């Protein structure tokens, strides 16, 4: 366990929230992208925690039966496992004047609800701020340690 672990962990949280924010922005920007018949599918971020059983040491010690009962490895934060397409069908909107409309006059549009995306954005922004607060608390702890040496 190094001295700067907690700041690094908060940083992984910031990166993850930033990625989520980018994806949300992309979903909102493409809310009306019909793409010539194959509309844009909304994207979502898959998050997973780092550490706690992912390292070689943890695997080895658990294989040898050395489970301490609690968390095995030191915590490592969070990472983006991947950006996946959400499995939602496109919605059909009646718009006969649109050049991409089919014979019945329907256009396939992405099924993106701006309200949902906005709610996600607020949640991501709050998580980001919480990570920043944690980071600044860790920073204060390190500064107060340095005060010891003065």
């Amino acid at each position, binding site marked *: *366990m190094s*001295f700067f*672990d*907690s*700041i690094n*962990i*908060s940083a*992984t*949280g910031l990166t*993850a*929230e930033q990625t*989520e924010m980018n994806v949300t922005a992309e979903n909102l920007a493409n809310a009306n992208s019909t793409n010539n018949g194959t509309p844009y599918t909304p994207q979502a971020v898959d*998050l*997973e*925690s780092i*550490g*706690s059983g992912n390292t070689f040491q943890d695997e080895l010690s658990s294989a040898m039966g050395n489970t*301490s*009962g*609690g*968390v095995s490895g*030191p*915590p*490592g*934060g*969070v990472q983006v496992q991947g950006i996946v397409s959400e499995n939602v069908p496109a919605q059909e909107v009646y718009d006969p004047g649109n050049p991409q409309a089919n014979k019945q006059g329907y256009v396939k549009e992405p099924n993106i609800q701006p309200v949902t995306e906005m709610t996600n954005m607020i*949640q*991501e922004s*709050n*998580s980001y701020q*919480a*990570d920043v*607060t*944690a*980071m600044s*608390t*860790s920073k*204060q*702890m390190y500064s*107060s*340690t340095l*005060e*010891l040496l003065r």
Partner: protein
Amino acid sequence: MSLLDNTQMALESAMSGSMIEQSTLANNLANADTPNFEPSNVNFQQTLADAMSAGQSPTSVQYTAYTQPQVTSANGNGVDPNVTDAQIAENGLLYQDLVQVAAAREGILETAMNTTTSG
């Protein structure tokens, strides 16, 4: 009789325990949106108190995190960001308390050393 007494060692051990708790809580907060994530925590005061009442040296205390199996949101995540935020703030203040007490005690030693050299 060593230069640093048991209390000073306990203070330093508590500081490192508090640092581990800080990492653990920061990890909880970073994983506030990770599906099926179980938060963990470190009760360093209890660990240290148990070790010291058992006559163990504070420097040899190992702090380990324990998981809290709970679910607070629909994706199976157990982190409550508000509670975690409060715990981080509390831990930060506690750490600064420890530093101040440790610094004050070292100040006493320093004063004693200066008195002997100048006198």
